[in-house]
């Protein structure tokens, strides 16, 4: 496996079918796209045709939601085989999924479920990441998730757990700025403590997204524009981690592409203010 950290790609968006024609018929100010792996694990038709055309024009990264790396059920070899086949087609700059589990006993709860931050869970996840990386022949990138509960048995903080996974399994991290904000609010920790606690050299991607505020807690819905508080954490993350490939992630209530490009421009502006323009020249 290559030891080289993936290059800074600039400012990207999650590819959504609603935007296919706008992307392919125009030239939106988007440096790269993140594609949802499961959406393209199909046999043919428009999804794969559009994917091929996007891959011809833009750098692409793959992002999955059902690897279930922390599940105590066996790894799903059929899924991993399909993931590897899709990667052979897409040639992604990296492949990411979430530091979570999605179900046991063959059930998929279609949610990014929380892990108790215990040594047992840590050993389990590290072992599974190593197995997946060996199978894929490449490093995996893992994203911190939003969570709504904490477990009494946890023995360390989330950022200690995330860092230990990255260092011991030798994988990359996708630092989801919104998820840090959401979990910090829900569990009463400091977002600064989280970002200061994560190893700088492991972070290859940022997600920035919106959420729904329920007063006593925040739900990570990805259906709103990015709010000022999350932009503040983004600003701090850029200052701490330096130039990191940044993406606006919208999964529901999808607005016109121009609206997301405007949000992406806002991220560019913050990064430029914090780092200065010369540091933001994307590798591509």
């Amino acid at each position, binding site marked *: 496996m290559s030891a080289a950290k993936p290059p800074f790609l600039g400012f990207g968006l999650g590819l959504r079918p609603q935007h296919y024609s706008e992307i392919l018929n125009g030239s939106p100010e988007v440096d790269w796209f993140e594609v949802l792996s499961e*959406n393209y694990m199909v046999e043919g038709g428009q999804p794969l045709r559009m994917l091929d055309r996007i891959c011809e024009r833009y750098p692409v990264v793959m992002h999955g939601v059902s690897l279930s790396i922390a599940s105590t059920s066996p790894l799903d070899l059929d899924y991993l085989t399909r993931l590897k086949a899709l990667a052979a087609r897409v040639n992604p700059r990296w492949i990411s999924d979430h530091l979570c589990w999605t179900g046991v006993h063959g059930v998929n709860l*279609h949610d990014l479920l929380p892990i108790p931050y215990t040594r047992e869970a840590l050993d389990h996840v590290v072992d599974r990441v190593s197995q997946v990386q060996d199978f894929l022949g490449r490093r995996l990138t893992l994203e911190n998730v939003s969570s709504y509960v904490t477990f009494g048995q946890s023995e360390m903080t989330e950022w200690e757990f995330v860092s230990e996974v990255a260092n011991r399994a030798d994988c990359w991290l996708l630092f989801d700025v919104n998820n840090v904000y959401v979990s910090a609010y829900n569990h009463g920790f400091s977002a600064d403590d989280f970002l200061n606690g994560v190893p700088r050299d492991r972070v290859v991607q940022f997600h920035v997204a919106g959420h729904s505020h329920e007063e006593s807690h925040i739900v990570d819905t990805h259906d709103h524009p990015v709010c000022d508080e999350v932009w503040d954490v983004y600003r701090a993350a850029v200052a701490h981690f330096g130039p990191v490939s940044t993406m606006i992630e919208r999964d529901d209530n999808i607005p016109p592409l121009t609206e997301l490009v405007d949000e992406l421009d806002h991220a560019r502006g913050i990064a430029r203010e914090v780092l200065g323009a010369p540091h933001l020249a994307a590798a591509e």
Partner: protein
Amino acid sequence: MSSLKDLQESFQRGILAGDDTILAEIKDSATEERKVLFGVYRHAYVARLAEVLADDYEQLHSYLGDAGFAKLAKSYIAAHPSDRKSARDFGRHVPEFLKTDAGFAKHPELAEIASLEKALADAFDGPDAKPLKLARLAETAPELWTSLVFAPHPTTIRLTFTTNAADIWSALREETAPPPARLLPEPQALLVWRQDVTSRFRPLGPEEAMMWDEAAAGTRFGVLCEMVATCGGEEGADFRAATYLKDWVDMESLADCRLLS
């Protein structure tokens, strides 16, 4: 303290079966009780899958209305925990569920509307294959046509409806009032396929449906012509068979042809 395996099993039971055992492992936050916080996961599971079903069965949703569709989603989600990595596969049992559930089975058009929507979705991202072109057929000498056999496009799906579900679906798609559901005097044959990137369907008359089914099963063209003659009369049978074949080529529902040696 439970092991990771026990905790995950308990957490899953809490979501699927409403079992509160997991709450003993969860802490209250400074601002909210653990039951409410865990409830975010419980709610998300049902809400997410109900949304998946509404996206996959858009016209069935329109036909049943929000309340009727919510009732279907609730019973289906309880009966079929998701067992696939992709949410796209979650609703694949809906047509069968509607056919067998005592409450819904009284309205047979529901399962048929769902079957049509599922077939259109399956055709949408089904396997790619280049469609058979007329030029390819023209390469075959006329005297050899009787030995031609055909391969359907891999996205083709044949349905047989006992109700006017296809008309109901079409009206809903056009956002007009659907006709009242009724049983048809004779079953209706439908062919679903993908033309380029668009899923399509069209009814087949009894003779064309018979010829399609035989052609899809590998019967050679000479025999197909004989069967058409038996089905609809000898006069003009070869012409009718050739017309059906040309229609299939024009609508790109065939992928290949070859001479049966």
